[in-house]
């Protein structure tokens, strides 16, 4: 194969998978052709997309964050409780939710960065602690919110706009700032990064706090979308986030990955969910097909990268 072609596949392999999925769905499903459906997909991926971006940062440092799903619930119940008690003060509700989630992120960061606890273990513990916190705080009951202003966050184009703003900001952060470079270096080789004068522990700490904060934002969007803050919501969300990051080319060993890659990853997952619903594929089969397509997408990506070897 010609050099330029090989390079093209290496760089855009996974995007081709997404485009191929779109082409197939455009052919077989009339609904898929509607603008409204495209908006639906974007709105549906907005929550998981924000989580996937958070996950990308963490995986890029060579870690993992299993707390993101639980923090979605934490944000929902904290925000929910304040807004239920005082519907006018939705800003306070959001602020409190984000602060608490950032604190949970800081807890993860503290154990990973300063006590060298493996990220998997630290955030697994964080996951159950945060989930438990959501139950204890809410006494297991959902908060149903009446604030129209707050629920507007989850309606129409708003979740999409929030997601896209976060996407752009995070992309800029990772690709254009010094901090982004430090994240890549820390994940690629933390010892070499430290020997280059980078305060690796601080970088890790900031990344986990950021992941907590982003999870909080995702939780607020979801709470606004469903008009309720539920302690049980978000279970298993971390798996979609990890899948999106990995499909998008983030290396589990750290140091490699991009935010646009993760966007493609989450769009593949979102398109898949939406497409299978539109095609009325049964709930049993959906799970199998999802697994196969995720595996296939990643295999295609890996083999297109090998071509250039």
């Amino acid at each position, binding site marked *: 194969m010609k050099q330029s072609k090989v390079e093209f596949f290496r760089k855009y392999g996974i995007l081709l998978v997404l485009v191929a999925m779109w082409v197939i769905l455009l052919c077989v499903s009339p609904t898929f052709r509607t603008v409204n459906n495209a908006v639906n997909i974007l709105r549906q991926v907005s929550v998981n997309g924000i989580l996937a971006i958070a996950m990308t940062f963490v995986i890029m440092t060579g870690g993992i964050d299993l707390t993101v799903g639980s923090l979605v619930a934490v944000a929902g119940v904290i925000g929910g409780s304040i807004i239920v008690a005082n519907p006018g003060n939705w800003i306070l509700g959001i602020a409190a939710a984000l602060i608490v989630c950032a604190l949970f992120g800081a807890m993860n960061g503290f154990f990973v960065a300063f006590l060298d606890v493996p990220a998997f273990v630290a955030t697994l513990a964080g996951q159950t602690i945060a989930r438990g916190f959501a139950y204890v705080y809410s006494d297991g009951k959902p908060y149903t919110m009446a604030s129209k202003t707050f629920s507007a966050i989850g309606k129409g184009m708003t979740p999409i706009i929030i997601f896209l703003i976060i996407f752009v900001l995070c992309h800029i952060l990772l690709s254009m700032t*010094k901090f982004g*470079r430090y994240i890549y*270096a820390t994940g690629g080789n933390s010892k070499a990064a430290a*020997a280059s004068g980078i305060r690796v522990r601080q970088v890790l700490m900031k990344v986990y706090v950021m992941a907590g904060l982003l999870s909080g934002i995702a939780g607020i969007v979801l709470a606004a979308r469903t008009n309720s803050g539920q302690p049980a919501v978000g279970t298993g969300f971390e798996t979609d986030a990890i899948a999106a990051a990995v499909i998008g080319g983030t290396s589990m060993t750290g140091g490699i990955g991009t935010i646009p890659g993760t966007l493609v990853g989450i769009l593949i997952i979102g398109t898949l969910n939406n497409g299978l619903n539109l095609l009325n594929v049964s709930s049993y089969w959906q799970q199998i097909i999802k697994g196969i397509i995720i595996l296939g997408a990643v295999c295609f990506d890996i083999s297109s990268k090998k071509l250039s070897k």
Partner: protein
Amino acid sequence: MEQYRLEVKNLHKRFPGVYAVKGVSFSIAPGEVHALVGENGAGKSTLMKMITGEYIPDEGEVYHNGALVKAKSVADSQKNGIAMIHQELAPLPDMTISENIFLGQEIMKGKFLNHREMDRRTAEILKEYGMEFDPRTKVRKLSVAQIQMLEIIKAVRRNADVIIMDEPTSSLADEETKKLFEIIADLKAKQVAIIYISHRLEEILKITDRITVLRDGEYIKTVPASGVTQGELIEMMVGRTLDNRYPKEEVPVGRPVFEVRNLCRKGVFEDISFTVKAGEILGFCGLVGAGRSEIMNAIFGLDKLDSGQIFVDGREIKVKGPQDAIANKIAMVSEDRKIYGLVLNRSIKENISLPNLAEHHKSLFINKAKEVREVKEYEAALNIKCANIDVAAGTLSGGNQQKVVLAKWLLSQPKVLILDEPTRGIDVGAKFEIYKMMGELAKKGMAIIMISSELPEVMGMSDRILCVSGGKITGEYNRGDILSGKVTQESLLHSALQEV
């Protein structure tokens, strides 16, 4: 016609942007030790990877004992009897010596492993190779040389009749090297063919039968080792004559730039004091483990100091971590570039600018144009060979990787440059370039500290030499004394071996 153990015919391999091997042919007879020399990037590694099946050649054939081999993986070639002892060794560190040796061919007793029998046989084998070890020792506890020996033992036990050794002596002490040569002689007697890759021309001339020279991926010549000199080999390798191996420039030494007083790290080194002046190259010699690298790591903030003072330009500085050393214009090219030097999966550009981002880009954002300009400047100055500055540092040859490490520190425009084994495992051409670079930096008034295990290098390049033994400075020698012949390799060795 005599049958060769291994014969390669017209091998070609292209990578995106690089034509790595351009039609190389050579052959090795049974019982021959065949050296492969060439600068880094000459195509030696790629050639070997094609022989061991890690890469598939674009063109050409490999014959093993007269039969065409089409190895598709390292496992294939191992089965055929071709074994490679890597420069970076890959044993299983938490398994015992005997488990490593019998890996994949375990002796069983019914359904269970027969540890006792394997340990007994391992003990016999170790004795045969002159290693006195408990077979149940964890491999983690062995030295690099011992691990290398273990790898050779494994290869021989698999009945390999072609053994490729990639820089086998680069991390061996003299005694261990001697042992290795004995083993090579032994393998030779057993009609094993050995491909010997090394930058150390002296030892190549000593132990090999024939030498094949590669340059820029091309086959240059195969010569018998008995009829060639080091100078002629170097000429063939670099394609030009190098009149002087150590291009030391005499630079007037200026005011003191860097000083340490009474540095101590308990159990590692103590009472270390020395001064380096502008334009001076201070050499450190001593055995591996004597404390040389440990002193430098502590100065640079990678390890903790228990006590002592550090001065730059007469002002005392506190170093809590590398960031403090860097802020005070100290730079260090570490001994192990893959661990402390480079982020291998990131680009050349990112590696070079990494320690300089804080200083050179004051805002939150990176000024991309400025970054590319700076990196390109140093890429050109150091003559780094790469397709472009966006390729991953890990894809470069050893010499070019080392140049990237140098570039990243030179960009920081240090006052004090610490070089820990700056030329380890890199080829003559690149070595020469690094020596010249050191001279130029000294001329600009930089204070340079160089640690090296190669005595000729220390003696050739230093204005002053400190010997370290047992964590203490045991001798100091001036260039004048070296030039006049008053101080010889023997006297340095004597200091380095001095019991403290």
